[in-house]
């Protein structure tokens, strides 16, 4: 893709603290945006996900791609999640997170170890996924973006060690 990447908003931009609106139009423009968003994440520093509000589009759409983890992890492949909602949580794990919108800082966050979520694809069809470990962490981080929540809002002690993942 030869187009320029979308500019990424960085903290403390207020738009990152905004609850996003549901996507209602499933049209070619949405698909083109998703592709542009993927291109933007591809050019970022080793991102495994990105959410629409990180580029200033205040809609409930995010990308999750655990296939990009440095070590192989269970995954559902590269995903575009539109209007995602977590329907079930189980277990807890501590892990280190960073964010394209918060350069030069990482910290520990507690996330559910396994989740189930429902969403729509780019055609508006309902899809469901079961995720665990690293992929579940990515999805929770990205869905938080859609609710105006950053990983900074969920930081726990530097010495927290429920169980590293």
């Amino acid at each position, binding site marked *: 893709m030869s187009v320029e990447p979308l500019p990424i908003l960085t903290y403390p931009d207020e738009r990152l603290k905004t609850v996003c609106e549901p996507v209602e139009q499933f049209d070619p423009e949405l698909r083109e945006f998703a592709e542009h968003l993927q291109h933007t994440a591809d050019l*970022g*520093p*080793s*991102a*495994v*996900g*990105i*959410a629409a509000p990180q580029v200033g589009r205040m809609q409930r759409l995010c990308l*999750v791609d655990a296939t990009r*983890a*440095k*070590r192989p992890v269970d995954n559902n492949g590269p995903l575009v999640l539109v209007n995602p909602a977590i329907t079930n949580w189980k277990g807890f794990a501590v*892990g*280190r*997170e*960073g*964010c*394209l919108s918060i*350069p*030069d*800082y*990482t910290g520990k966050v507690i996330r559910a170890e396994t989740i189930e979520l429902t969403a729509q694809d780019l055609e508006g069809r309902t899809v469901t996924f079961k995720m665990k470990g*690293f992929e579940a*962490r*990515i999805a929770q*981080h*990205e869905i938080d*973006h859609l609710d105006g929540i950053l990983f900074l809002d969920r930081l726990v002690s530097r*010495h927290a*060690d429920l169980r*590293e993942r």
Partner: protein
Amino acid sequence: MTQPWLLLTLVGADRPGIVAHVTRVLFGVGAELGETAMMRLGNQFAIMMMVRGAGNPEEVAGLLESTRAEFGLKLHVDQIDAALHQHREPDVSVIVHSADRSGIVSEVTAALLEAGMNILDLRSDVGGSSDKPIYIMQIDGESSDGIEPIEQCVARFADQGLTVRVTPLETMRG
């Protein structure tokens, strides 16, 4: 021209209010704080702070003299060649525990060095009781050659009564 960073170190008996008093003095003269780390070691307070904009080391020590004396602290200030925005991400965690004995840190860190690990963060504690102390050490670092050499290198400690757990870390960035 921006003044260089100073590293300010304060150590002494732990009492409430030390950080608030010290930073109030520094803020009052327009100093800028960079990264800081405070901890209790034994029952002692210890803090390291990056400070700039409050003068040279002698001037900063002078500013803090009354606070230092009030709290009975030892103060040390050095000019350092430091910069912000230099964070590095650990990709391996090593946790060690055993009955306390001398040499644990030396032996384990020598093995980690041999295995290509660069330590980014180390914290150790002595727990248990006075007559039966235990030693717990948590290390985060960068593994230049992956975790397999580290696991192989620390395996020898099992025969010495040390429990060593090596865990890969991956930062999720999205």
